[in-house]
Structure formats: C-alpha cells, structure tokens
C-alpha cells in the first residue's frame, strides 16, 4: 500500500512540475518529503501537502475491524484532501529514538511529519533540547484551547510550542484478588513479605520512581538528590531481598493474567483490556504516575499540514469519536485518556460504556493524584546509569 502511494505521489509531484525528479529523488520518495532538513523554520508556508506521514504506536487509533480502515483518518482526508500515511512503527521510545537519532543527528530528514513519544521517558525532552523538533504552527491550531488544563504547561515544553498530547495513561498497581488481599500502596508492594517474589515493578524510571517517591512523601515533579536516593534505596532493597521478581515493560500482563504474579506495577489501559474481573487496578494511595504520549513534528516535517491535523484531532467531536469507536459499526476506539476537553460528551453518543469508564475518563479526584515525573531528572546521566545498573543486574 505504501509503495502504491509513493508512485501516485510521484506522479502528482511531476504534474505539479516542481522539483526536478532526479534518480536520487525517486529513490528517496519513500513516502515523505524527501528533503534534507532545513535549519530552523522561520515562517510557515500555509499550504497543505498531499500526504501526511504519521508514525504512531500500534493500536492507538480508532479502527474499523471489518474494513481495516481508520475512520478518523478517512474523515480527515475527506475534509482536507490530505492523505494520512499512517505507520504503526513505534513500539518503544528507546528503540525508536535509537533509530531516528541517526539521520537527525546528521541533519537528515526522517520523512515523518508527526511522531509520538512519551513524556515520562527522556527522549521527548531530548528531541526538544537537540533542536530536532519543529515549532507548531499555532495559528493553524485554534482548537488548542481545548487542551485540558493539567497538560497546558508541562515542564519539558512550558508554552506548548513543540508538542501536543496524543493520549494519556496512568501508572499504578494492579493485584489479583484470588491470590492476595488488595495491594493499594507502594509500601505494600515493595515490603509486604506475603508478596515476596510475586510482584513486578515497571522498568520505566519515570513511572517507578514517581510512585515510590510519592510513597516516601517526596515530590516527583521536582526531583532532588535526597528524594532520589531515598526512593532508589527502597527499590534496591526490594531487589536484593528478592521481593521484586522482575522489572518489566508491559510484559507483566501475561504473567499477571496467568496468576504467576500477585501484584504488579502496571499501566491503567492494560488492565482494562485483560478482561479478567479478578484483576483490579488502582492509583496507589500516595499517588501514581501520569504519562502522556505527545505528538511532535520532527525536523524536516511539514509543519502546516501536521498542525492542521493536530487541530482536527483537538475538535472534541472528533476526539470523542476516536476515543469511543463505535461498537455498532465494528469500530474499536483508542481507550486511553484523551487530552481534549469535552470529548467525553461526544464519546457518550457512540459508546456510553467508554464515556463512563473511569480509566478512560478519570475523575478530577483521580487526576489530582497522578503526577508527571520531573523531565530534568529524566536526563540526569547519574540517575539514568544508576537505574540501568539496577534493572540490569
């Protein structure tokens, strides 16, 4: 499918009769702008490109199970004439970054207009600090006003000049009620001897340290060495006395589902999707972590077209539809926490169960208990090394 688009795109470009179609140019037309990244855009040309190249995580878009189409993307094309080349090729922040830093560090374009990276991992901040992100064309995103307040001024992008949230999720603790009494706090998770060897902790520094710092009464949004060391020591102790079975990414899910774990530090969306009524997820008593996958325009991407798309998904009506899907039409929704005010109202029309799901539309009380990890700490080399040595023995 990608290849057919490439040919069509080429022909269109030839028809426009613009740039010389050289042999390298044809080779480079892998579905992108194909140009070397220019250094710093000053004024944005307000012209829509024919194609928008959008890299995202898998299963992160509303999809029609029968036709395999993405309804919201089709609707976008109908509205603006822009075809979205949607690629689900991000499965992990670290490896995706490891891949794109190659071309970006050489000033080459990665042929993407939008990529999605998580804010409680270091790479989002790193992209901004290295100047590898294009500034958003805010004049094309009036719907930005619909951004929920808690996301308006994150510490890695104070004025939201470069990023906009895609979806959020929460990190907390899940437990299996057939195997254990409710595990509702990090204290319980890390120190209850009854759970020894039957718990896992997330290998993501931002998630794990947020939860443990909060349990210590410290502030994870502003990390001090003292707070770091206290939380680190606690986790270290749990590793040494074999309380922690493994550090996991989302591979805790099968182990938890199978009953090999009594409790696990886990992400909210996963547990809802396990479909096991014995497994309960909660924000820990002292608080949990909030993570947000953010859209970002990498250097060389088409700023105007990307901005127009972002504006489109920030329309509450569109967001509501994307979030809920439509069970009647065989469309699965995204089922994570949307960053757009008012999306819940529209989601109700398509699937009331989604609108009422506290993991997808959490209450204000829940939201007040989840925190975003300090982005400065995420790039602290000392902390990073300590953490990696801990989880890698």
């Amino acid at each position: 499918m990608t290849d057919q688009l490439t040919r069509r795109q080429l022909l269109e470009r030839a028809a426009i009769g613009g740039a010389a179609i050289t042999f390298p140019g044809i080779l480079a037309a892998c579905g992108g702008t194909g140009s070397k990244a220019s250094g710093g855009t000053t004024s944005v040309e307000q012209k829509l490109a024919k194609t928008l190249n959008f890299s995202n995580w898998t299963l992160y878009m509303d999809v029609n199970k029968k036709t395999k189409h993405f309804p919201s993307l089709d609707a976008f094309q109908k509205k603006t004439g822009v075809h979205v080349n949607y690629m689900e090729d991000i499965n992990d922040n670290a490896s995706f970054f490891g891949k794109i830093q190659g071309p970006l560090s050489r000033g080459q374009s990665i042929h993407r207009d939008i990529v999605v990276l998580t804010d409680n991992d270091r790479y989002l901040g790193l992209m901004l600090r290295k100047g590898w992100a294009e500034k958003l064309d805010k004049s094309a995103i009036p719907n930005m006003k619909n951004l929920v307040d808690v996301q308006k001024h994150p510490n890695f992008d104070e004025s939201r000049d470069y990023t906009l949230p895609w979806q959020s999720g929460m990190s907390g603790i899940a437990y299996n009620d057939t195997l254990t009494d409710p595990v509702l706090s990090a204290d319980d998770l890390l120190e209850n001897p009854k759970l020894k060897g039957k718990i896992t902790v997330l290998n993501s520094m931002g998630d794990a340290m947020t939860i443990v710092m909060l349990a210590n009464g410290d502030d994870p949004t502003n990390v001090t060495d003292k707070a770091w060391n206290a939380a680190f020591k606690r986790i270290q102790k749990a590793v040494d006395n074999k309380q922690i079975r493994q550090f996991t990414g989302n591979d805790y899910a099968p182990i938890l589902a199978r009953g090999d774990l009594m409790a696990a530090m886990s992400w909210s969306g996963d547990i809802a999707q396990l479909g096991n009524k014995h497994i309960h997820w909660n924000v820990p008593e002292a608080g949990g972590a909030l993570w947000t996958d953010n859209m970002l325009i990498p250097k060389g991407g088409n700023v105007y077209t990307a901005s127009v798309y972002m504006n489109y998904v920030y329309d509450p009506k569109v967001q509501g539809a994307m979030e809920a899907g439509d069970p009647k039409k065989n469309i699965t929704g995204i089922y994570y926490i949307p960053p757009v005010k008012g999306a819940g109202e529209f989601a109700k029309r398509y699937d009331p169960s989604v609108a009422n799901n506290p993991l997808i539309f959490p209450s204000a009380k829940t939201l007040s208990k989840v925190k975003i990890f300090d982005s400065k700490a995420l790039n602290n080399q000392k902390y990073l090394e300590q953490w990696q040595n801990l989880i890698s023995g």
Partner: protein
Amino acid sequence: MSAVAVERARTRGSAPATAWAFVKRHVLTVYSVLFFAYLLLPIAVVAVFSFNNPPGKFNFTWNKFTWDNWRYWNGVPGIESSIILSLEIALIASLIATALGTLIALALVRYGFRGRATTNILIFLPLSTPEIVLGASLLTLFLNATFITVQFGFWTILIAHIMFCISFAVVTVKARLVGFDRHLEEAAMDLGANEWTTFRKVTLPLIAPAILAALLLCFAISIDDFVVTYFNSGSRVTFPLYVWGSARNGAPPQVNVIGTAIFVIAVTAMLLNVVIQMRRERRGAA
C-alpha cells in the same frame, strides 16, 4: 554415499540379547519423538490459542473457541503485508546467503591461500557482534552513503539479512565439506569429467543436504529477526516487527494464526514432496 540404516544379522545372540537390541534400537526413536514433542510444544500452545476469542485485547487466557481469527486472518491492518514482506525477504536472503556462503566454504576448505585465517575470522565476527550494535552500525553506513540516497525499506532489510546469514551458511556447509571423501571426485575426473562437470554432477549432489540445511537455517533466522531489521527497516514492517509492536497493546490472535499457518503450510508442502517421491519410486519399481 549417505548413511544407510544397516540391519545387524540376527545370527548371533540369544533372546535377551535381541530384546536388548530391540530396546536399544527404539530408545533412539522414543528419545527423538520426545525431543520433537519438546521442540514443538510451544507451537501447539500457539496453535491452540489461535482459536481463542480473547477476553480483552490480550490473548493470554483462554476464553472461548472461535473460527473468526482464522476466517479473518488478515483482519488487522498491517499484518498481512508484514508477513508477506517477511516471507519474501527470508526466501531471497536465504537463497543468496546460502549461495555466497557455499562458495566461501568451498574456498576455505579446499584451497590454501593467503588470507585464509583472516577470512575465517571475518566469518566468525558477525556471529559474535551483538545485534543492537550490528543493526545500528549498518544503519550508520546507510546514512553516510550520501552519494546515493538510500531508501530504507525492502533493500536495506534484505542487505542486512544477507549480511548476518552468510556466516551461518558458511559454517553449516563447511561441516559437510570437511571430511568430504575426495575419491569420488577423483574417480569422476579420472573417468574424463572436467572440474565443472565433476562439481555439478558429483560434488553438488553430495553436499546438497548441507546446502538445504543452510537454507533452512538462514530462512529461519531471517524470518525471526527483530533487532537488526528494526534499525534498517525505514517504515516497512516485517512480521516480527509487527508482533513486537502490537504486543504493547496486546498482539492479536491473528499473529498465532499466521505462525501456525506457516508451519502447517510448510509441513504440508514437505509431506506432499515425500508422497510424490514415494509414488515415483513405486512407479519406477513397478
């Protein structure tokens, strides 16, 4: 001459000895059957779960039986193109790698030449390089090749796969060439065949099992590779890339379907081959 099963003459030995011989003979078979059971156990589990209608997005616990996954085996966007790409690459890469590897193996075993030791080291090095730096360094090569604009996708993946498969092919075919009985070749040449004909009609058929084994090995490695492929795939998605990517939100049961299906199709193809051969032999003997 390939190994022939040889029946011991039953002239010696009393009943216990023949009984012991019976047990000994079948121990190997029983062991081998157990081995295959162990080897294929996960595939059985995978196959079973391909019929599962998962309770949520995750296919970890058995919920209820359904034919839907098989019926709509390509019902998830991206899965069909990923497996087609993987099969294409695996096929082409294994053929080329085996061909190149066989040539190298022949040179290494049969000829003394300067740079022999270096070549041997060159063959071992890719095997010992951790995948992540292998993939990343190859990516760097492609990025620095500014005289041509490299299109990341099919060709870069193919190049990467051939690169790491060659060593496997070389070592596998070498195992056959070392200790190869030259007298057959010498006999052929004494009877007037030139080198090329000898190679074609004597050597090649005799090392065919090794070439087939190398092909199978390379195919398997290629179709399962993740790390090196990930770095050099651009926006193309192979089957392992798809599986790893979808695992975050729950790999769909269609993944199980495809894995099982490939296995079944390959086995059926082989079986058909055997049956056809048996028919041919029967017809020939008749």
